[in-house]
């Protein structure tokens, strides 16, 4: 599939995008729900690590997320409560879409990726900001580790 207007995405993110866009709008929520169920658990070494939790006060769900760089390969880990399936779905998309990429590939992911997967009407742009925030933070964490 060629789409001249769309920025180039890494393969995994591109496949996720096509999966969503192939569905009618209402059914995209079900796919997001499937992603939320697929969110992998945290590796043990992160389970008890303090400082990963950047707690969001009020209206939003607490999410812990961390992009780990190992030999220039990125792994994205995240956790969010069961009662926040949307947040879990967003985290799961990024965990599946970013993990295994090089640091440069992650930094090159367009910031507007969350707005490119056809969820603007089914989920709303304000909520998609939640995924944009996670992506921004992952990039910052990658940069910090590269600079260290």
């Amino acid at each position, binding site marked *: 599939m060629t789409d001249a207007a769309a920025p180039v995405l890494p393969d995994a993110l591109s496949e996720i995008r096509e999966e969503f866009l192939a569905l009618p709008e209402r059914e995209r929520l*079900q796919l997001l729900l499937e992603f939320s169920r697929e969110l992998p658990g945290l590796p043990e070494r992160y389970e008890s690590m303090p400082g990963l939790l950047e707690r*969001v006060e009020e209206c939003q769900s607490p999410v812990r997320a961390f992009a780990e760089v190992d030999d220039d390969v990125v792994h994205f880990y995240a956790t969010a409560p069961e009662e926040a399936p949307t947040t879990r779905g967003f985290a799961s998309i990024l965990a599946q879409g970013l993990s295994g990429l090089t640091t440069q590939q992650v930094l090159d992911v367009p910031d507007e990726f969350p707005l490119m997967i056809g969820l603007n009407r089914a989920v709303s742009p304000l909520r998609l*900001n939640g995924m944009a925030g996670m992506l921004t933070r992952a990039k910052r964490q990658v940069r910090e580790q590269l600079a260290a």
Partner: protein
Amino acid sequence: MPAPTDPTPRLAEYAHPERLVTTDWLAANLDTPGLVVVESDEDVLLYETGHIPGAVKIDWHTDLLQPVERDYLDGAGFAELLASRGISRDTTIVLYGDKNNWWAAYTAWVFTLFGHEDVRLLDGGRNLWVAEGRELTTDVPSPAPGVYPEVERDDTTFRAFKEDVLAHLGTGPLVDIRSPQEYTGERLHIPDYPEEGVLRGGHIPTARNVPWATAVAADGTYKPRTELEAIYREGGLGIQADDSVITYCRIGERSSHTWFALKYLLGIEDVRNYDGSWTEWGNAVRVPIAAGDEVGDVPAALAGSRAA
């Protein structure tokens, strides 16, 4: 034909006991004709993971708001939405949701703008229902369409706009439902987290800060009436029964929860919710704010123009 009122004694002490139902009562009344249970959540997917049997979903972002006008549905849109959920004008609606019923209360408030007569909240919300191990299902009902008239939304009785709040300063209580850090202006946003983007931190001058959670017990149910009186009336904010009161928070959802308590549990007649809230006020041109712990004064220019 409205469903019967939940006769639970602890509800009877509230000014309008018919506005709340307990989880026990709801569990026993799920099949009552003319009653529709509606789930309204912050999380757009939570309903899909499992909900109270027979409940339909109404989402504040995707169902209630018109993004272009930044306003709620019009009468035709509202009629279509409710009819599609099997709701008629005389249906008893029981609302519940996540986050201590913030969005359920918000939806109840929007329904009230359209004058729906019988709107109730499930006391304790989704959390309590789940904590008590009650039944959930992923079956989505397909109700027969309701018959709902096109009703004009009433934007004056229960809703306040920015101009109303400006005119209100110095004339009646103003209750800020946000966290103390938001009230003082210490917190504007958290790094890398989604926010509506507010330029100034603080509160509306003269507003008193009573975070929403002050109104609920540990299990998320509303506190008994005497405790609510002590918070909002004598010994607390000192609100009088005939005061005109405005509530606000950041986007108007937490303040709906307090709006509901003041209006229906304490029986204060004139309570409006300012849905523009801090997201609008903190960014608005030529409106005053106060920072820090002090409630702040009515700006002289406003007080002067009113006296003149």
